[in-house]
């Protein structure tokens, strides 16, 4: 047996015969020595069985070569000895009996011909097209809903929590406040004045010429129902709490710096620059309640 002159260490491997396939369809099995030639091969040095036999593959059909770092051998012919296949003439290429592809390619007429790949070709291009677009669209749909959920959850963390929201509203029973009486309740840390006004007080509040006021505002703008006056009990001057049913105008009087508010809570005298603020509120007639907040 003629070893090549290059120093190559041969090791026997028990591997699958075809470990990969070249683009031309030729299977290659790295690391397998194909120098172990079959019977009847002329050794090239005189003895042996004489002339080449017809059932032995020609030497160009197999070979080893050192390609880069890989030791490659090629075998376009079948690797099972021909006598096991029961075929008499084995010099012509036959179909591979050991292969890794799921479908056995049809035997090509020549080892050099381009293999027939037509069975890989799709029979239904519109199905493939619709499937590709469907998968793209599905990923987009999932991504869009994930992004939306992320953003909404993130924004929800900035919203007021349930305990804060529960404290944000205060209910006052209307039936508990008699006519011409004040009630002071606490709402979000601030006092709120609720006054049940009489007809005379309403008339008085509406008869004022607002052009003479420091902060012109009609009584209709300040109340939702004329008999109920709801406003924040914080003096607009420096934040004291005015005293009810006092002052020059029958409304509120701030003891800190002497601001006078009328029966509609409008600043009439003293340093206060603005009318008393009106918080958002609503009426619940079914339960006879004023809901502030």
């Amino acid at each position, binding site marked *: 047996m003629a070893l090549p002159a290059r120093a190559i260490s041969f090791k026997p491997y028990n591997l699958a015969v075809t470990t990969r396939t070249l683009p031309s369809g030729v299977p290659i099995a790295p690391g397998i020595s194909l120098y172990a030639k079959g019977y009847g091969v002329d050794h090239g040095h005189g003895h042996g069985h004489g002339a080449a036999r017809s059932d032995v593959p020609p030497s160009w059909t197999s070979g080893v070569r050192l390609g880069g770092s890989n030791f490659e051998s090629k075998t376009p012919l079948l690797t099972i000895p021909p006598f096991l296949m029961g075929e008499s003439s084995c010099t012509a290429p036959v179909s591979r009996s050991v292969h890794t592809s799921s479908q056995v390619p049809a035997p090509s007429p020549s080892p050099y011909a381009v293999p027939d790949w037509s069975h890989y070709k799709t029979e239904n291009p*519109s199905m493939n097209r*619709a*499937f590709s*677009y*469907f998968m793209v*669209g599905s990923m987009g749909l999932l991504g869009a809903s994930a992004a939306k959920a992320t953003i909404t959850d993130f924004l929800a963390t900035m919203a007021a929590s349930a305990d804060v929201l529960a404290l944000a509203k205060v209910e006052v029973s209307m039936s508990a406040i008699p006519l011409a009486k004040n009630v002071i309740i606490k709402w979000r840390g601030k006092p709120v004045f609720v006054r049940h006004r009489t007809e005379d007080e309403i008339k008085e509040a509406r008869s004022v010429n607002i052009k003479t006021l420091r902060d012109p505002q009609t009584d209709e703008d300040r109340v939702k129902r004329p008999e109920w006056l709801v406003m924040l009990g914080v003096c607009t001057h420096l934040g004291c709490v005015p005293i009810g049913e006092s002052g020059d105008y029958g409304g509120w009087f701030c003891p800190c710096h002497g601001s006078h508010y009328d029966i509609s809570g409008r600043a009439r005298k003293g340093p206060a620059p603005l009318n008393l603020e009106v918080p958002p509120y609503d009426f619940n007639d079914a339960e006879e309640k004023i809901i502030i907040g």
Partner: protein
Amino acid sequence: MALTDTLYNALFRRNSIFVSSIFVGAFGFGLAFDTATNRFWDNWNKGKQWKDIRDKYVTPAGADEE
């Protein structure tokens, strides 16, 4: 074959229709997903949540405490 061609012509051919149908579908999918997961959660935790056991603790006479 006909179905896939119909789908392609209806949704995928124009990118504007494709993208807008993705957004509409994401909206519907989000609604359906939230509804389904909430229903599963309520079903899985049946009898453990406040809304399930509320009747045991809140009596009709106790309306003043609300």
